């Protein structure tokens, strides 16, 4: 009899094991650097928080796979009024939040109004991105349960793309009002393919597949996003098989990976939605002379910079717009590397012996420029060859930006990462005369062209995609002629994944969506 129970016990244990194997959940473990700050999409400013929110929340429109054009998400269609001021969004039926409450027009109004309206019960937070991207919004209201209308103060075509961005992700009003905004920041509730499970600060965030999702269900049962700040440690976790994929890949990591010769790991790369460039302050001599600016463009060896200092993980820039955005002008010819021509132009402008100036660089690695100092030094050498002697200058990052905003520099290295995939976000923000106001400038070249400004405003007010495309192409020609900046490179978005991972896609906007990922 004793023997029977022993065998039975073994049998039970075996069944449990097998059942466990059958019901074993699939997990995708993703490693990134810093941890998220908070999970209220309207109140975040950092990429790590956006990364997590992308899995939990959704917007009315979303970016198409591999493109910066938009397609329906929580809204199935949209329209613009005849005066081009009022947008109407028709919402998707039958969508639920993770807490079971229904998604409807009221939820959309709630998510937007809480940021605009100081008296709103959920107006708790800084909403840094609202005043940066959405101040044009005049009113939001629900026409009926499935229709939302948004009236703008001025016609603004890029608005549609702004509606695909994280600050206007739709949050569950019930969850926010019941538990309060502060609780929501660590227990988010959205409509996305993944629902929140737990957050161990500076360690990991655990999400699980949402069974009630309106679209295709997520490819894995559990998604764990780990925070490993030290780059090398993160790579080692990947090599040891503790994580399935990682971002924040530095050029050294690529080298290490090549040396390891691992067949089961591969690098995925794509030009990012960014541009690293040298801005020439046109208010300071001699940069007010277009010949000098063109000379500098000829003097810099971009290909060498990209090969050596970006480890080839970038594409040399011709325009201020990254090549994978619509509106990119492929016909513009780069100045190219021609130090002789540079010297001729400098002589013509009255500087046959060259001149002395400052070259500012940032002390921190930026996605568009992995090592500002090395790039500045390389440029210093290039410019020396044509007679332009540069003193290298730097400040800590916060101070650097402040000084740039006040036009304290002559030449500075800087860059930009796009927000919404609309060319306006690069060409207007970085080079229009509107943004050349000292104290808050983003047009670090102080480029004040009326002709350019007209093109920008027209493109903002036109809703015809082809017309806008043509206008932006024209603008890039103008920039090429006037040379207020020297575009240097568009850095790649990089990730390293285990070959067991399928469905991992990079997106031109630099965002990550993991719902299509499966792990063998």
């Amino acid at each position, binding site marked *: 009899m004793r023997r029977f129970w022993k065998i039975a016990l073994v049998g039970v244990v075996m069944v449990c094991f097998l059942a466990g194997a059958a019901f074993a959940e699939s997990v995708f473990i993703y490693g990134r650097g810093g941890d998220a700050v908070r999970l209220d999409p309207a109140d975040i400013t950092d990429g790590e928080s956006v990364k997590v929110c992308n899995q939990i929340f959704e917007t009315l429109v979303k970016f198409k796979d591999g493109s910066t054009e938009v397609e329906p998400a929580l809204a199935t269609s949209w329209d613009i009024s005849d005066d081009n001021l009022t947008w109407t969004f028709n919402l998707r039926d039958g969508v639920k939040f993770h807490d079971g409450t229904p998604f409807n027009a009221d939820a959309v109004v709630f998510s937007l109004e809480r940021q605009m309206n100081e008296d709103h019960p959920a107006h708790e937070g800084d909403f840094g991105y609202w005043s940066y991207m959405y101040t044009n919004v005049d009113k939001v209201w629900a026409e009926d349960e499935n229709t939302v209308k948004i009236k703008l103060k001025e016609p603004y075509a890029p608005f549609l793309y702004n509606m695909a961005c994280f600050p206007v992700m739709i949050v569950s009003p019930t969850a926010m009002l019941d538990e309060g905004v502060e609780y929501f920041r660590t227990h988010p509730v959205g409509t996305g393919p993944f629902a929140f499970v737990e957050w161990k600060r*500076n*360690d990991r965030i655990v999400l699980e597949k949402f069974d009630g999702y309106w679209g295709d269900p997520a490819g894995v049962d559990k998604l764990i996003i780990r925070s490993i700040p*030290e780059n090398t*440690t*993160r790579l080692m976790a990947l090599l040891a098989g503790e994580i399935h994929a990682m971002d924040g890949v530095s050029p050294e990591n690529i080298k290490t990976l090549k040396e390891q010769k691992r067949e089961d790991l591969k690098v995925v790369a794509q030009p990012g939605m960014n541009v690293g460039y040298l801005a020439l302050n046109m208010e300071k001599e001699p940069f007010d002379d277009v010949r000098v600016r063109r000379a500098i463009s000829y003097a810099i060896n971009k290909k060498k910079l990209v090969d050596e200092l970006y480890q080839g993980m970038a594409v040399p820039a011709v325009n201020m717009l990254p090549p994978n955005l619509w509106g990119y002008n492929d016909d513009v010819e780069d100045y190219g590397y021609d130090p002789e021509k540079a010297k001729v132009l400098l002589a013509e402008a009255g500087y046959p012996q060259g001149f002395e100036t400052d070259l500012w660089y940032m002390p921190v690695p930026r996605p568009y420029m992995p090592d500002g100092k090395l790039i500045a030094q390389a440029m210093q050498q290039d410019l020396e060859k044509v007679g332009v002697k540069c003193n290298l200058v730097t400040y800590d990052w916060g101070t650097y930006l402040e000084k740039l905003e006040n036009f304290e520099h002559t030449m500075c290295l800087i860059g930009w990462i796009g927000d919404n995939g609309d060319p306006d976000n690069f060409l207007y923000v970085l080079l229009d005369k509107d943004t050349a106001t000292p104290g808050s400038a983003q047009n670090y070249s102080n480029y004040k062209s009326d002709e350019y400004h007209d093109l920008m405003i027209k493109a903002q007010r036109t809703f015809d995609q082809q017309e806008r495309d043509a206008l932006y192409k024209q603008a890039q020609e103008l920039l090429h002629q006037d040379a207020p900046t020297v575009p240097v490179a568009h850095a790649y978005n990089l990730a390293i994944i285990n070959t067991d991972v399928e469905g991992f896609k990079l997106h031109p906007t630099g965002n990550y969506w993991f719902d299509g990922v499966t792990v063998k």
Partner: protein
Amino acid sequence: MKLGKYFFKRIIMLIPVLIVLSFLIFTMIEAIPGDPAQIMLGQHASPEALEQLRHSLGLDQPWYTRYGLFLGRLARGDLGKSILSGRQVIHEIAEKLPATIELSFFAMLIAVLVGGLAGFISAWKQYSLFDYASMFGALIGVSMPIYWLGFMMIILFSLILGWLPTSGRIDPTTALHAITHFYLIDSLLQGDWKAFKDVIAHLIMPSICLATVPMAIIARMTRSAMLDALSQDYIRTAKAKGLGMGRILFVHAFKNASIPVVTVVGLQFGYLMGGAILTETVFSWPGVGRWILEGILARDFPVIAGGVLTVAAFFIIINLLVDVLYALLDPRIRY
């Protein structure tokens, strides 16, 4: 009892020390360039957004107002809110302190046991091979860069041998309820033996890495204190009396040697509590050290102040306990 009064007096002294310290931290951070609001918003900031953020963080007020508000809150036991995360600083410390304490405790345990034993034996068998070898080892331990040692250990034990995990406190797929936030205790409380072993596996490398410097210092200190004690007259008397070597070493020599050793241990524990920033960074250990470092980079004054003051408080209390320990160890010491 006089000791009690002494203890109480020393605890009271904590308050003025921490206030002066907080003022020093405040002025140092004011002197460093960098605006937290600008750092948070980066380039994607409109001037309105920056102004709004500065205002909501209270950064547009003069420094004495801000410092005064800080002191006022401190008096009520409120360390304020982190500029970066908006959460209560006390809350964040409560989350991260157990991680650092757990790590420091184990590092200290290793340092005391291994270092103390090495020093003890070195003194007993002075001039032996063990003596030279362990003192040489101590020299290396104190000189070896922790960053490098940490990565080397990960490469050897995680990648090549595959024995230990690379980083973190616990396997991400393990579901452990954090009750005390001391994972070893939590896993025992829940009877989760698998989690317990997992936590130990994660503790081994960072603890050893962190222990190298204190271990080396304790070894040398123990050795020299023991040698000093062994050269005393009372030891000769004890030997003359015919006492066994064991009794001489442990009861007479070690007890007397322990006073300087305990001092060093106390100071070292304070150093470990300093958050062991390097070890926490290499092993992605979610402790106080990393948190303070991130606070410094973001110019997050409440975090920096809260973190440094907590570490200072620990340091002071530990050294107070050391002083109390003296009174118990050495009858000559009376307060």
